[in-house]
């Protein structure tokens, strides 16, 4: 029985997820690129005076790293705080997972401590942010009224992924560098080898299974927001300056009545 579960989670699901991710991403990106019209206007930028590519990039950078557009909302602080906590937490956690497939030149002891303290703290921050956002969604009638199955499904999966991830990092602390890491590398290099991960704890199995289901779902639901906005013409294109080139004082524009002189015509 164990081997059926392990075969499903460690061999079938990873490749199903990979296919779902690639196909889904292709479908999405194609649909974003094929929609070309922007209702007849030269610029639909939402940020004023972004006349240069540098300004657009600067704004995108601020948008992503500071969530500044949420910073002075009229009545709502939870969204700003929750978004910052969750996204910073989850990004650090995700980046840390790279150590599973990319060799890092540090001792196993140090690695383990970084995982515990940095990983644990980031995971807790992400979890706290997520609970704040979920609480806001459920607790505020106005937000609840614009929440749908999709919103809860993605968040529900994430709660599971994070809870079981935190259980590993903070409570069970299994040795994943000799089990999960070689297995993951074998999957990503298309030479699947389930031997190292055989017999891994249930918490790890659930964490991996939920993560794979979540990843497979990413291109089909709201999680595409992570890349979709990069295709949004309102934040990725410049506007054009007007008024910078007013005809010179000696041009015909200003020729009707020389200053101080009598009326012409």
């Amino acid at each position: 029985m164990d081997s059926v579960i392990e075969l499903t989670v460690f061999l079938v699901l990873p490749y199903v997820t990979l296919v779902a991710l690639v196909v889904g991403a292709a479908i999405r990106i194609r649909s974003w690129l094929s929609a070309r019209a922007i209702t007849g206007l030269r610029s639909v930028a939402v940020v004023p005076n972004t006349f240069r590519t540098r300004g657009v990039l600067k704004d995108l950078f601020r948008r992503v790293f500071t969530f500044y557009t949420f910073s002075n909302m009229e009545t709502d602080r939870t969204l700003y705080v929750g978004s910052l906590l969750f996204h910073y937490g989850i990004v650090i956690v995700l980046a840390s997972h790279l150590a599973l497939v990319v060799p890092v030149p540090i001792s196993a002891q140090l690695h383990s401590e970084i995982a515990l303290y940095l990983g644990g703290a980031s995971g807790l921050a992400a979890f706290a942010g997520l609970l704040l956002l979920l609480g806001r969604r459920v607790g505020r009638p106005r937000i609840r009224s614009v929440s749908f199955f999709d919103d809860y499904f993605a968040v529900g999966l994430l709660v599971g992924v994070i809870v079981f991830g935190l259980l590993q990092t903070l409570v069970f602390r299994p040795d994943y560098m000799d089990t999960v890491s070689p297995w993951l590398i074998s999957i990503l290099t298309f030479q699947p080898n389930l031997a190292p991960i055989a017999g891994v704890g249930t918490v790890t199995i659930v964490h991996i299974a939920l993560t794979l289901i979540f990843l497979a779902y990413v291109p089909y639901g709201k999680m595409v927001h992570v890349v979709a906005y990069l295709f949004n013409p309102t934040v990725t294109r410049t506007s054009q300056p007007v008024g910078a080139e007013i005809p010179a004082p000696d041009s015909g524009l200003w020729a009707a009545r020389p200053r101080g002189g009598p009326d012409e015509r």
Partner: protein
Amino acid sequence: MSGKPTLTYGDSSSVVPFWAKPELVSKLEKVAPHPEGTKDLARDVRAGLRSAVAHNRNVRIAVDACVHCGACLDACPAYLATGDVHNSPVGRADLVRQALKGDGGPLGRLERWFGARPLDDAGVHALATYYYQCLECRRCGETCVFGIDQADVTRSVRSVLADQGLVSRYVATVIEASERTGNNLGLPPPAIKSTIDFCRDEIKEEKQLDFPVKVDAPAYALFVPPSADFFLNLETLKGYMTFFHLAGVDYTFTTEHAELGNFGLFVDEKHLRAIADHLVGIARKLEVKFVIAGECGHGWRAFKQYVIPRLEEHGIGAAHVFHLVIDAAKRGAVKFDPTKNGATRYVYQDPCNYARGGDLIDEPRFLLERVVTNRQDSPHSRERTWCCGGGGGMLTDELMPLRLEYAKLWFDDALSIGAEHVVRPCAICKAQLNATLPKLNKARSTKVAYSGLMDLVYRALVP
């Protein structure tokens, strides 16, 4: 008065615009012919929405990227004023989402199993009602972290509805007048000329300046104000004329397209283009080298984002009148005496389409600083400005209950800093303030006045 819709907090569905009658709709078809098809309204609207989602990138991204975080609820004047979630950016978009769910195919069956109901005619009318309560002020786009511009979605949805003959009577009337006469109010050339002459007489009396004004005559530049300036905002008109005279600008008015406004922007790209292309045609016919825009928010956005690129194709330059006043002031070609505008506390409130879509934020401030002595920014200013409450084609009597609610946001803003005079250089703002300020002032026992910016320039200009 009985029969008027009453507004309860949390439900604004009772305030519905009058819809254009078939005769009026058929007049608009000259520019935007309806797609061939059967008269199954709900089905055709759904097909139109599906096409808008497929072809318009703004709409596509809005549908795909929105995570329903509700930040726009907190930014939207329509939602904050009415508390009706369908009268909000995300709520309106949800009506579209609902309309697109649950038809055809296995996916549709699955969605129906989850409770989706195919769009019916009542659904279409709900869609139309709420999409005509949107001010298209773009405050949602400013707050959305992904920059999702629901005002653009509004324009696309209204375009789909207009394709099926469902369009606000007011907006349709204005577009029809504009396409037939060259201005929104349908003013005939003699009326425009006599208004200009009337203003010349007033300037003569008030400023002791007497000068000729070109109308439909050859000149270096063509000047295009909103038609409301020939009707309601004569102080603004006097401001332009006096500035042009003192700075020596060689310009002409036109009676053939006496309109900066472009209601096509509110509804349909095809009308936006038709009205704007007519203006470009007049500029080419008059062989001007430059076109100057007057004070009008949405008109400026249409001008900047559509007309100017077209003019440039023909080697014609363009700018807002503020750009010219600033240029002349910096050179010392015109002088201001700010004391002429008294000690009144003026508050500048950015028109939406200047601050969010027109890149005209610092220019009016540069001028106001020089023409008045006591000025302040509104607490919600620049790109966080409140809409006047009449934008997006809502400047019509039957929507007055909503317009009054929307107006309270900027009115409270102004009162909070003790403003005595609100400056909004936009024809729609001025018309909205003209209609709502008396009521708001009465309700709060205040005496807040309003004007454009060129009105104040007029008084401050040293002859």
